[in-house]
């Protein structure tokens, strides 16, 4: 598995993101789409009931416990297109915090403003966003401000509307495209004006730190995490001997 080239590393450090066009394709993409739709179909009634009782958000539909539903979601976590980059950037000590298998309804407003996910006091925090269907620029695409991950970027501005953010970049993409980004950076989901819900998977990682993820977080799928590398990635075993 190949990690970043010197050029990619420099781009990552300067901009805070890397894009992998058609990172998943062919049979892998078909398998992933099928698993996504199957899981979404199985969980939708519960989501609608949760909306009605005021306990689940209508603004995004997250499939609960996706790793327990289909091995295709587990295989995404250390997928060879992006995982070597995560390992490299985290000094070979990356852990999984969780996946979000998410459908975003088309809405006249975005459900979230520009924000970083964590402060710089948190160990390096990274996300991979994978589009399951084609996403147009006005279809709820991922937006990111290149360079905003740097410690000297200052606090995230709150421009109104989203488009007032200076120097932001929108990431339309094809099904199977993936974007790796540093979550110190300012990002959002742009407004979806297409009428078509956006389907994507967001994988959340962090450079290991003691006690961040308990060893039983992924115990329910431990029988499928058989290699030492995977067991460390899923915090089933200690990162450091």
């Amino acid at each position, binding site marked *: 598995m190949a990690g970043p080239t010197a050029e990619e590393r420099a781009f990552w450090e300067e901009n805070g993101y890397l894009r992998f066009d058609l990172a998943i394709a062919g049979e892998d993409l078909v398998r992933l789409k099928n698993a996504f739709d199957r899981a979404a179909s199985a969980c*939708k009634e519960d989501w*609608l009931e949760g*909306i*009605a*009782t*005021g*306990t*689940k*958000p*209508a*603004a*995004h*539909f997250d499939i609960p416990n996706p790793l327990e539903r289909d091995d295709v979601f587990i295989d995404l976590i250390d997928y060879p297109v992006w995982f070597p980059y995560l390992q490299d950037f985290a000094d070979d000590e990356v852990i999984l915090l969780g996946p979000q298998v998410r*459908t975003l*309804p088309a*809405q*006249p*407003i*975005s*459900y*979230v*403003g520009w924000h970083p996910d964590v402060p710089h006091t948190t160990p390096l925090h990274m996300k991979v966003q994978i589009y399951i269907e084609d996403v147009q620029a006005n279809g709820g695409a991922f937006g990111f401000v290149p360079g905003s991950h740097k410690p000297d970027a200052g606090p995230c501005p*709150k421009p*109104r*509307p989203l488009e007032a953010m200076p120097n932001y970049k929108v990431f339309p993409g094809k099904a199977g495209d993936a974007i790796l980004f540093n979550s110190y950076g300012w990002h959002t989901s742009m407004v979806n004006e297409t*009428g078509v*819900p956006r389907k994507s998977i967001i994988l959340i990682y962090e450079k290991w730190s003691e006690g961040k993820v308990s060893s039983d977080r992924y115990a329910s799928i431990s029988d499928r995490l058989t290699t030492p590398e995977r067991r460390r990635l899923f915090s089933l075993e200690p990162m450091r001997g």
Partner: protein
Amino acid sequence: MIDAHVHVFAKVSEEFPREVNVNTPPEREATAEQLLETMEASGVEKAILTQIGGVEMVQHAYLLRCLKEYPDRFRGIGLVADPQHPEDQMDRLTGDGGIVGFRLFKIGGERDPLAPIDVRTFETYPIWKYAAEKDYVIWLYPPAAENHCVPYLMEAFPDLTVVYNHMAFCPGEGSFTHDEKGRPHIESPIPPVTRYNTLGQYLFPNVCVKLSGQYAFSKEPYPYPDLAAWHQTLLKNFKADRLMWATDSPWILEDPGYDNLTKVIDTQLPEISEVERTSIMGGTAEARLFSRG
């Protein structure tokens, strides 16, 4: 100060017919005169009277009487009996100038956020459309199941003034009960999960939020510290000129008491400027509600 959401009602009579429930038995009254006395004791000059006791024209009799009697002190919010054909009732209720808007407890919209959405199919669409045409206010207290429909309506009617009730909480099904004092109580997460479809509506310049009903949503006694972060969030998103303080009297007269509620914003938003406080405590309601009618 302007109290942007109170209820008045008379004892049930031929002159003032109304529905009854556990909070409003036939012999109970919460009159305009009692309200004015309470307001004056706390330095509150004006109030928005929100219809209670039924949607029919005849059930608005006491509200209309109060608006006519005290035109400088009150404006009113009415209810609509037939959402498919609301125009006549909306015009009749606003005819004398006191009623400036209409309260909605539902949208009648698509409950699946992933389905195609066409606002023209919503049950209450004629009310929204006519309110937009006549510049009436929509007084909105939608259920959680339908809050995602509101941004579509705002997109269709971007100039319409909409006032979310009770801190923009949207009650979930089965969440409404009464507490041991007989007051409405709504069991809801704090902050409300519906916020993801509410906060982005700052984009629509006439969407406002009423800061009221803390007693019904808080899990703590007055001054309801568990709601402070949510008040801050609303201020950050909507700004003071779109927020309105209110008490929801008479449900709060015993606990925490009317006068205490005139100070609730000071405890929820202790950092605001005097200009912001002036807006929230009456300036916004004066500009957006009392300037009508």
